[in-house]
């Protein structure tokens, strides 16, 4: 069987390499991707369309925001799928609860506890910065959401899963994960209601008279990034909590 796998890999690799001589040169300014009207448009028009200096965010959240909406849905599905497969119903109260093999007791290591107490607020503030600054500098909802989720996971690792789940119970993180997608979609639907195509943020300036169409685009990007961050951070924590406790949401690692 290993030989069949090797042959398949060599064949696929050969197929991928066989087109190499037809590729445009590395960094060629006249390659099809660089000279197409699409990339030209992004480079020339992003500033005038939305005033967003980070072109990548503009492509991601505005020009191709439809893809990003579904990517957010994909993240949501990943969390829902893990819950659907792993989650087991709560044990009956009378039933004997298996004691964990390594009982550590309530007092956790003071060094770890203190470090995390100092680190988590910084992490969360940094996460908010990354989310809020996505359209000006590298960052955005996915990255900031992951950092935010990581801060919850750190709390769960340091203090145990149960205290973390008291702060952020299952009902709440599932709800917030859905709310993230709702935020994203409602920006699109608001555009529909105002009579333009889905996710055409420009029209949202009618809601706030002081805002220009460009500002509306820029602010809407921030809005959808916040939605993305909600979903990503909550799903990060949901996946950790379910995997760490085999779906029982008790005890944990």
């Amino acid at each position, binding site marked *: 069987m290993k030989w069949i796998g090797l042959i398949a890999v060599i064949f696929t690799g050969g197929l991928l390499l066989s*087109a190499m001589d037809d590729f445009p040169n590395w960094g060629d300014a006249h390659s*099809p991707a660089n000279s197409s009207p*699409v990339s030209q448009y992004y480079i020339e028009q992003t500033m005038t369309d939305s005033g967003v200096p980070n072109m990548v965010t503009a492509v991601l959240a*505005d*020009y191709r925001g439809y893809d990003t909406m579904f990517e957010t849905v994909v993240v949501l599905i990943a969390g829902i*799928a893990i819950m659907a*497969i792993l989650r087991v119903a709560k044990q009956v109260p009378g039933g004997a609860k298996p004691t964990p093999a390594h009982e550590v007791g309530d007092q956790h290591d003071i060094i770890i506890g203190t470090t995390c107490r100092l680190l988590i607020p910084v992490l969360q503030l940094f996460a908010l910065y990354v989310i809020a600054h996505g359209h000006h500098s590298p960052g955005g909802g996915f990255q900031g959401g992951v950092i935010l989720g990581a801060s919850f996971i750190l709390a769960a690792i340091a203090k145990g899963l149960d205290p973390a789940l008291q702060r952020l119970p299952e*009902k709440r993180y599932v709800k917030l994960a859905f709310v993230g997608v709702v935020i994203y979609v409602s920006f699109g639907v608001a555009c529909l209601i105002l009579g333009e195509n889905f996710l055409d943020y420009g029209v949202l300036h009618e809601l706030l008279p002081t805002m220009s169409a460009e500002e509306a685009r820029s602010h809407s990007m921030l809005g959808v990034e916040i939605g993305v961050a909600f979903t990503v951070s909550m799903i990060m924590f949901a996946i950790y909590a379910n995997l760490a406790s085999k779906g029982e949401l008790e005890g944990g690692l």
Partner: protein
Amino acid sequence: MAEQYPILVLLVLLFGALLVGLSGMADRRVCFPLTVTALGLAVAVSIGILQRVMDGGVIRYFVGGWSRPVGIGIELRIDTINALVLLTVTTVGLLTAIFSFRRVRDDKTEKTPLFYVLYLLLIMGLSGMVITGDAFNLYVLLEVSSLTSYALIAMGKSKRAATAAFSYIIMGTIGASFYLLGVGYLYLRTGTLNMMEIHQAILALDGPSSTIVVAFVLIIVGLMIKMAFFPLFGWLPNAYSYCPSSTSCVVAPLMTKVGVYVMVRMMLTVFGTEWVFSNLQYTQWLVGMAVVAILAGSVMALAQVELKKMFCYLIVAEVGYMVGGAWMANHWGMVGTIYHIMGDAFMTLCMFLAAGIFLKQAGVVRIDQLDGMFRKMPWTMAGFVVGALAMIGIPPTCGFFSKLYLIRGGMESGHWFYVGALLISSLVNAVLFFRIFEIAYFGKNPAEGHAAHHEEPSVQPVIKEAHPSSLIPLYLTAAIILLLGLFNGQIVELIEHSLNGVQVIGTEILVEKGGQG
């Protein structure tokens, strides 16, 4: 409002899923009505889309209004082919949702809302794949539909569901990665992701480009894994037979069929049939492989003792029909393929609905357990017979007409092996289904039937006829199978309308190929 239909069909499903997720946690009872309402609205909007396409031609919808240089935003592009497949997807979704009513009532776990969220998102992903006009957006929605289907299959109660889902994940991910690599290669050479723009860029290329050829191979191989084309079908039988009935009823009819649709779309719109059939000398091999797929699927179906497994191998054979029809470079072959996407979706749905009812009411897993079903469950068997006759290809049903078009295409383009395989496969189907009828009508061993009856009449548990919520979707499916057959002329006219619109499969190519062969 009408011009927003393309996005609305996805939005009602997405909002349905979000609402089920948010409110279903509090009260499980709202899940079912919300799901059925969302799917009902989606079907209504799909009908509206079909109406609009018939009246006004191709719909082009630019998400976010980014239309000035085409390709900066994402375009949804609907012609009559998409509209028909979209209607098929949403209708199958609605019928299976009605069928799943029993599941909610009997399910004691708290996973019902999660099931319906995944279910609605699966239908949304498939609908999105069907209507999109952007090669990368198609990948994103492929991810949505694949992930949801993995989870739905893994939710099965039997232990083998998890392992089946795992091998499906591995194969499905490889398939999706191949597709994505192919899109990357296309972008490298054309600089755009919009399907029509890619087509224009390929037409404008001077001379043959090996990048495009490799992209084409990667995309088609990736899709063939997704649609379970013959050598790459290993994941399908276990995944589709060990999952919950309401999952198999939606996954089995739709996943492979949408895969075939995407392949057809790639051939027609992205690469263009002139490029596909004139620059590639090896398309004949694909028809040959389709012949092997049809024969292998039929033979393996004959060897099965489990009902659902048998249907799964029939799906493998049916995919062979469609791939062969699409690659024979003939107008009627292509028409037959697209018609068969719809017909086969409903035929498979009918088979799996009946299998789900048999499993639920009588615990039937193996074919020989269907003993005496005509007497015990006459209403269910009536619906099953319609689907079975369609699978065999008896005239008033859609199965007959799709085979007719495919055979006509095979004869015109001189693919006699394909025609032969199709006829053999129909005979095998006849043997398979008449064997089932015989068992269900006369019992396993007709000669000994009387003796067994006298000895132990009370040992057998009483088998009740199915619940109306299971019978209604079964009958609607049977009715659609008959209607598709009766109105085949109009449907083919619609399909041809789009085929002419994008300049496909000119007869000159046919003549050229015929001359070579």
